[in-house]
């Protein structure tokens, strides 16, 4: 698995370099290309920060290992993204976006198993978003070099997603679901019971009264 992954990542990097060498500065990348380069770069920065948070805050060996792998892989992926952006004259932001920073702050504020669960859930969502952004670039980007980078990153990101999903199975599966607190959907026998009891009382009173009257007569 590891050998296959390394080969995959090396191939992705080599492909990126070859493409960048063969296709020097195009006329102008499309807006979609530019958007994806920014999204991919900020995603990589956020992933690297997430990996570092896992190393600092988790005592779970699997999560720490995955955190380290995420740091290594996204540093490699980001080297290609940054090089492509440089060649194409696209300016990249220096930090993750506001949402990613808020997520990092929120998850980093947790400890223990709570941190682990939140980190796994966060990484699953982040990698799904990265895959969706890559798919969009492959489908509607115009610069072949940028599209190739997006395509080459997909299997790496997918492997991270698969591993976080497997971790969620081991550590984060819900153990209960509380999905009703009104009671209106439940059929109550309260009304029927009260009605029956009231009818019974009435019969007792009437029969009793008649019995008493007869006894006196």
């Amino acid at each position, binding site marked *: *698995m590891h050998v296959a992954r390394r080969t995959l990542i090396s191939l992705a990097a080599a492909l990126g370099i070859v493409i960048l060498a063969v296709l020097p500065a195009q006329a102008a990348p499309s807006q979609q290309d530019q958007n994806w380069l920014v999204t991919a770069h900020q995603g990589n920065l956020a992933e690297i920060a997430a990996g570092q948070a896992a190393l600092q805050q988790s005592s779970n060996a*699997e999560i720490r290992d995955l955190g380290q792998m995420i740091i290594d892989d996204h540093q490699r992926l980001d080297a290609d993204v940054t090089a492509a952006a440089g060649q194409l004259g696209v300016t990249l932001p220096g930090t993750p976006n506001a949402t990613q920073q808020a997520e990092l702050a929120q998850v980093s504020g947790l400890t223990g198993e*709570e941190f682990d*669960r939140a980190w*796994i*859930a966060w990484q*699953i*969502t982040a*990698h*799904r978003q990265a895959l*969706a952004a890559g798919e969009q670039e492959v489908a509607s980007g115009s610069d072949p070099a940028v599209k190739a980078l997006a395509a080459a990153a997909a*299997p790496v990101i*997918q*492997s991270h*997603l*698969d*591993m*976080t*999903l*497997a971790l*969620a*199975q*081991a550590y*984060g*599966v*819900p*153990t*209960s*679901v*509380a*999905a*009703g*607190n*009104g*009671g*209106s*959907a*439940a*059929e*109550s*026998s*309260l009304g*029927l*019971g*009260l009605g*029956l*009891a*009231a*009818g*019974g*009382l009435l*019969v*007792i*009173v*009437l*029969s*009793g009264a*008649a*019995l008493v009257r*007869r006894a006196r007569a």
Partner: protein
Amino acid sequence: MTPRAVLVTRVLGGARRGASQAWSRIARLALVLGVAVGLAAVGTGAYLASQPARLDIADAGVAPLPPQPVAGGNPPPPTVAPPAALAPGRAPVELRLPAPGDGAVAPRPAAVVPVGVEPSGALQVPADGAVVGWWSSGAAPGGAQGAVVLAGHVDTAAGAGAMRQVLDLPLGSVVEVADEAGGVLAYRVTGREQFDKAALPRGLFRADGPPGLVLITCGGTFDARTGHYSDNVVVYAEPV
């Protein structure tokens, strides 16, 4: 009056008195019976009135659960998923249920939001009964494998919840899930099962195996004191 006439009068009078006494006894018996029946009704009524409200849904169809340990306990070691079928799926944004019958109006589509797990292990079900939660650490609609888990209230203090209608879905009904990319996936209902809330099988949340949809809501006995149902009702569906 002749002796014969006196005799006739006496005999007839005696007969009338006898008949009236018999009728009196029957009436008395009827009244006593009335009191007894009344007592029985009061007893039965009091018993019924004291019973908690229940929401029971018959199990139906095939439960596609592989044998799995109950959630909790020691987690098995994580298995690294086989390398990538490249179909991660997309986040669901809307759950659309069919009309409950011919000529009936389909319920309003319910918004779907991603949810996680509380520190207690409980799935975070949205407080708004009209909104459905998607367990976002599991499978996503359109993904190559795993069960997409959507959970929603059967009811809240505000009335029926988004999942109330799920309980009445006949087998074979088609449920639709819209995703964030604008795609719509159709699932056919294949089964329904009721579980004690404390024994929800962890296999419901599987991330591998054939793609499917799992809808979870509440049922069983409603405890008005705690505001909770005793059971979960689970509806299974598979991609059409």
